[in-house]
């Protein structure tokens, strides 16, 4: 009977076209779109800003040494003489402005400390980008002066930087290739299990009340535990399908990113692809562990969904109960970015939801150990069972079934 109940709920959800799009198609497509769209868009914008010629407002252009001016011009900067520079930048007429005092050249020639005023808007990306171009040019020019002075004093430029640091990356292949956004995988599993399972859970509990089918179901000889388990199973099926779709989307997006766009985008793009974790390294064992963890996380979330939505009288009411759950998923998922700071404590693997997210993050990074796996799985199974038991008890209560 459990499967009989589950089959009907699954059939019902499959026939709901809107639910299918939102819980299967969207998770499949959203990541490829984000992964391909973001680098294209950002890469394009940065490139344009870097290569297009930017006009900056200046006062005292004639006091600028010719050498520095050439340096700035090679950075694609051209100059416009203007007044009241601060207002111009403030109003956004120019991204940056440069105030060159009369004494600038003479002080430099005399070997004294000279100063420039650079006006930009902190917090405005374009303005900061252009300001940094000017700073780069100026420091290059300064370095030139220093080098010359040192040489004339018979010293090498190395005295300025007596020590060089060589960086060696000790992270494993899996860690490196999983990218800085690897935590997205467990995050998407959690969020999409919730989104996908929700459709079925709502329909199977509050939906039965709203349509007036629950009473008919309960006067039939089917056991209530079988009804609860059947509905749980159907919820789990869609929760899991949605999260598998999201993972497929991630893999698909990564593959597309590498094969189609990497070459076209040039040097900077490789880094962006890396950050987005486009090249997930997977071994059969890690896939197996990941799937098992996703299954158990999905069952916990499904049990949670069923036991909560059962109390609602209507769809709307059930939706309002479920909405805060996304925060329960998002908070630990966001915390995962800082998993390096707490990853070693075994107790983390006993906290439901958080444990699955941390464990999946470990798996993706290829640094999974035996004990955390066991702790996580045991905890997820235990909490799922507790929640299902609670759901079953609630389902027998008059106050829950016939709430007025």
């Amino acid at each position, binding site marked *: 009977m459990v499967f009989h109940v589950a089959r009907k709920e699954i059939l019902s959800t499959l026939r709901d076209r809107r639910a299918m799009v939102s819980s299967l198609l969207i998770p499949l497509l959203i990541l490829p779109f984000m992964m391909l769209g973001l680098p294209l868009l950002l890469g394009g914008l940065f490139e344009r800003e870097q290569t297009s010629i930017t006009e900056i407002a200046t006062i005292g252009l004639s006091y600028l040494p010719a050498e520095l001016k050439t340096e700035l011009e090679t950075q694609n900067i051209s100059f416009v003489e203007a007044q009241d520079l601060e207002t111009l930048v403030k109003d956004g007429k120019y991204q940056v402005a440069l105030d060159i005092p009369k004494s600038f050249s003479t002080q430099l020639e005399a070997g004294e400390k000279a100063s420039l005023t650079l006006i930009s808007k902190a917090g405005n990306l374009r303005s900061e980008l252009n300001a940094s171009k000017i700073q780069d040019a100026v420091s290059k020019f300064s370095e030139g002066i220093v080098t010359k002075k040192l040489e004339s004093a018979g010293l090498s430029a190395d005295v300025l930087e007596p020590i060089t640091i060589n960086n060696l990356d000790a992270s494993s292949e899996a860690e490196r290739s999983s990218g800085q956004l690897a935590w997205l995988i467990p995050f998407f599993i959690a969020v999409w299990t919730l989104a996908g399972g929700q459709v079925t859970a709502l329909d199977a509990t509050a939906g039965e009340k709203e349509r007036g089918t629950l009473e*008919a179901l309960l006067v039939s000889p089917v056991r209530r535990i079988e009804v609860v388990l059947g509905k749980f199973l159907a919820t789990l099926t869609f929760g899991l399908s949605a999260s598998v779709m999201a993972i497929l989307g991630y893999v698909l997006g990564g593959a597309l990113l590498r094969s189609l766009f990497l070459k076209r985008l040039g040097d900077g793009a490789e880094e962006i692809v890396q950050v987005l974790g486009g090249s997930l390294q997977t071994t059969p064992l890690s896939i197996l562990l990941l799937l098992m963890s996703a299954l158990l996380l999905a069952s916990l979330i499904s049990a949670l969904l069923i036991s909560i939505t059962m109390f609602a009288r209507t769809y709307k009411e059930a939706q309002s109960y479920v909405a805060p759950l996304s925060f329960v998923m998002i908070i630990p998922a966001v915390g995962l970015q800082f998993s390096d700071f707490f990853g070693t404590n075994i107790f983390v693997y006993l906290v439901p939801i958080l444990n699955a997210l941390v464990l999946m993050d470990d798996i993706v990074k290829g640094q999974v150990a035996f004990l955390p796996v066991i702790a996580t799985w045991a905890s997820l199974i235990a909490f799922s069972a507790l929640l299902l038991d609670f759901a079953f008890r609630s389902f027998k209560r008059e106050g829950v079934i016939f709430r007025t």
Partner: protein
Amino acid sequence: MIEVTNLGKTFSDVTAISNLSFKVDAGEVYGLLGPNGAGKTTTLRILATLIEATTGKATVNGFDIKKDAEAVRKAIGVVNGGMGLYDRLTGKEVLYYFGKFYGMSKVAIDKRIKELDELLSLGETLNRRTTGFSTGMKQKIVIARAVLHDPPIIFFDEATSGLDIMARRAVMNFVKAYPSQNRAVIYSTHVMSEVEELCNRVGIIYKGKLIAENTVTELISQSGERNLENAFFKLVERSGMEVSA
């Protein structure tokens, strides 16, 4: 076939029914007549094992509602006004879904659907998704689902509410045609004319108490009135309770 003894039910602070006793024999259609809030639905829900009585006891088809709830559920069919269907399933799929709970095979369900099709003229409702059904079409499938397993006992609770005259007639015709010597029916309603037309015996329920019980003709002559509606008010007055809306 149904025996109710001193049944009572209290919801936190509301006493829905108290000290309710009546019997329904095989072959009878027993009318449970009472205004809104009288306690009809509560009584039927207790008999259907959906909620538990606070006091008293009852047997349905010989089974105790508390000790043998599952046997009771196998023996009853329930139709009420607010019942709906699964809108993404066809009429037939709804019937298959429920048939299996009663341990019926697909062949048995198909055979039964044919019989019910003749009785209720289910027609196209069987193969269409129930989303677009009129209330009348829905109610036919609801009835077919309730009697799918050919239960010896059927409860109707405001089964005609929200139906137009044609659909109402169809439901009433079914209640007239379906009962037999080995079936017992409780027909709960606040509509006097339905009781007059359908029921052998009537229990008048008011504010959770059974204030009179007899055949329609006897109730009318007892009260000295001309019709059931007037008789109802007379009987309520006589019971010593205040008549309130």
